[in-house]
């Protein structure tokens, strides 16, 4: 079994050919937003960091107070809520919305259009509602493997590491009050309209409208939802001309507008497809209809049967 030159070249060329195949060649098709999907538009230029959304979240979801385990807790380490106001400082951190300033970000589940967590969960504990698109967690199904935490690009699912009988904790867009015709707590109580709830198609339209507004003009910003019942006048800041979440990771139902680059709000740069589409593509190509494993098994069974038979005969011959 010496490695001679011809063997070496064979392996070399086979390896090179394999490596030259682009690795997203197997990715499955992207998923689309459901027409009935709901979402939240968060406009960071309006956020004053008052954290009313956190308190509303606690009340709506009956959360017991407990320090959260977040990477960005210096602003507020004590309130435990499914949406957290984070502060991002740059430079001397004196003025909001400037390069040398600070910014707030309302961190909560992005309710991805093609969620990695849903694809990763082995026990279907995380599911995406086919109509509303809300990603929710089922305590009866979850085994606590925490693969959702590995998979989530936004580090949203939280796990109770300090509990003997832990749960996964994440925002479910207050779907329990939505069925009663109410809107999520964070949006309902946001005093400036920084977070507004609505049908996904409407909030996307609203986001694009705002990008087209002239800087420093006065705009009647809707508060709570987009019905126009409540609103608050505010001068328009100079937006970055981009809706974060329209494409990120295959799209999210939580859209974000900002006057500073999105990385200053701690948001990751993501490709326009979900990693789930890549993983599922590879898995489904290899395991389609279990054909490849069955064929491989048949081949193996045949070979081992022959080998084992030959072995038995030579044993008897001894």
């Amino acid at each position: 079994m010496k490695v001679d030159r011809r063997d070496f070249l064979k392996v070399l060329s086979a390896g090179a050919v394999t490596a030259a195949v682009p690795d997203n060649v197997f990715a499955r098709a992207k998923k689309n937003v459901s027409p009935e999907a709901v979402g939240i538009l968060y406009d960071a230029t309006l956020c004053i960091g008052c954290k009313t959304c956190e308190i509303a979240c606690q009340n709506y979801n009956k959360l017991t107070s407990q320090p959260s385990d977040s990477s960005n807790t210096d602003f507020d380490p004590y309130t435990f809520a499914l949406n957290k106001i984070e502060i991002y400082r740059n430079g001397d951190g004196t003025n909001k919305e400037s390069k040398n300033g600070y910014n707030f970000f309302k961190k909560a589940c992005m309710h991805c259009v093609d969620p990695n967590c849903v694809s990763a969960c082995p026990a279907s504990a995380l599911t995406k509602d086919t109509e509303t698109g809300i990603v929710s967690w089922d305590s009866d199904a979850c085994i606590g493997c925490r693969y959702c935490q590995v998979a989530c690009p936004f580090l949203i699912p939280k796990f109770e590491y300090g509990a003997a009988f832990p749960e996964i904790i994440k925002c479910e867009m207050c779907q329990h009050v939505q069925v009663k015709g109410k809107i999520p707590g964070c949006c309902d109580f946001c005093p400036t309209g920084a977070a507004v709830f609505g049908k996904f198609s409407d909030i996307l339209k609203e986001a694009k409208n705002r990008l087209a507004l002239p800087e420093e003009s006065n705009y009647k910003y809707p508060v709570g939802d987009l019905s126009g019942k409540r609103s608050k006048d505010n001068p328009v800041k100079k937006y970055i001309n981009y809706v974060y979440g329209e494409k990120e990771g295959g799209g999210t139902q939580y859209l974000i507008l900002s006057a500073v680059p999105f990385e200053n709000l701690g948001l990751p740069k993501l490709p326009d497809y979900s990693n789930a589409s890549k993983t599922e593509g590879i898995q489904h190509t290899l395991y389609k209809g279990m054909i490849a494993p069955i064929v491989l098994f048949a081949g193996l069974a045949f070979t081992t049967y022959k080998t084992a038979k030959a072995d038995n005969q030579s044993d008897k011959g001894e």
Partner: protein
Amino acid sequence: MSELKPIKGKIFTLPFFILLILSAIALVFIIKRFMYGLGAVSNLSDGYPWGMWIVYDVVTGTAIACGGYAMAILVYVFNKGQYHPLVRSALLASMFGYTLASVSIFFDVGRYWQMYNIFLPWYSNTNSVMFEVAACIATYILIMWLEFSPAFFEKPGSEKTLKKINSVMFIFIALGVLLPTMHQSSLGSLMIIAGDKLSGLWQTGFLPLLFLISAIMMGFGMVIFESLFSSVTLKRPLETPLLAKLSGVIPKLLIAFLIIRFGDLIFKGKLGLLFNFNLQSLMFIIENLLFIYPLIILSSQEKRNQSKCLFLSAASLVLAGSVYRFDTFLIGFSPGVNWHYFPSFAEIMITIGIISVEIMAYLIFIKTLPVLPDVKHA
């Protein structure tokens, strides 16, 4: 298979007692984990949800336990009957490696009391790579115990049972090759979904292929390592000529592995990450030097026949594959600037305890059951 015999010797030796103490310490921490939660014993966090237990006990441990898989490929698929004496001991080590990995999963999983949900059809998620890994590993453990079962019946009075088992053995052997092929590759696929949280030095769609090849290499490395190690410690004759021939397979696999690994990095333009001079680039270099060392040594026919060279190459190869797995799951993984992970004392002690149980069980089995080749014939 009359040439396999239990080896003589007392079970309760001094090393055995040390192992026993280590597993008792682990047990204390395991009890603490079940009483107060994962955070009470581990440094796991929302940023680093997987630590030492998943990465060593499961991802690395099962790859180290691929000896049985690698030997089955060689003996039954490529019909190299001359390696038959090595099969059963390799299988035994694999059996314990995998069984103990599944025990580790049980205390790593947060909601262990409903772990069976994965296998309930209305909960199973066939899109999940984790589901595929769990289903395959569970089945494979069962198959390995069935493959090993003749060892329990190779005694007078059980000839009929033995014959029955042996007549269907080829099915178990075939499954014993199929299942690791599936889940060892899927262990690599697990990290694809982590996207950019995993450094470009390791993140690639080729993870399944690279994990598969490296698992087979680690399997062969482990067979060589175990055989030479047990020959020395149990004062048995060295099986160098057989192992030298076996080791000839490794360079071919290594070349394929390294070409795909570096080819992919070059095509994607990620090799530049090597010059970041951080922990990740350092570990990448160490990992690959450990792969290249056995390639150089084992490509030489002459060196393959020296037991010292064989031993060092095999050890280097197993270590390389292990570092590759640690890098892919931990060193290369960074959820964000504010997150850090290093295993806690309790985490390490629990893993050491698991390894101790594994070695104790191996020692008991080879001293009471026909596993190793009889010295006279070897």
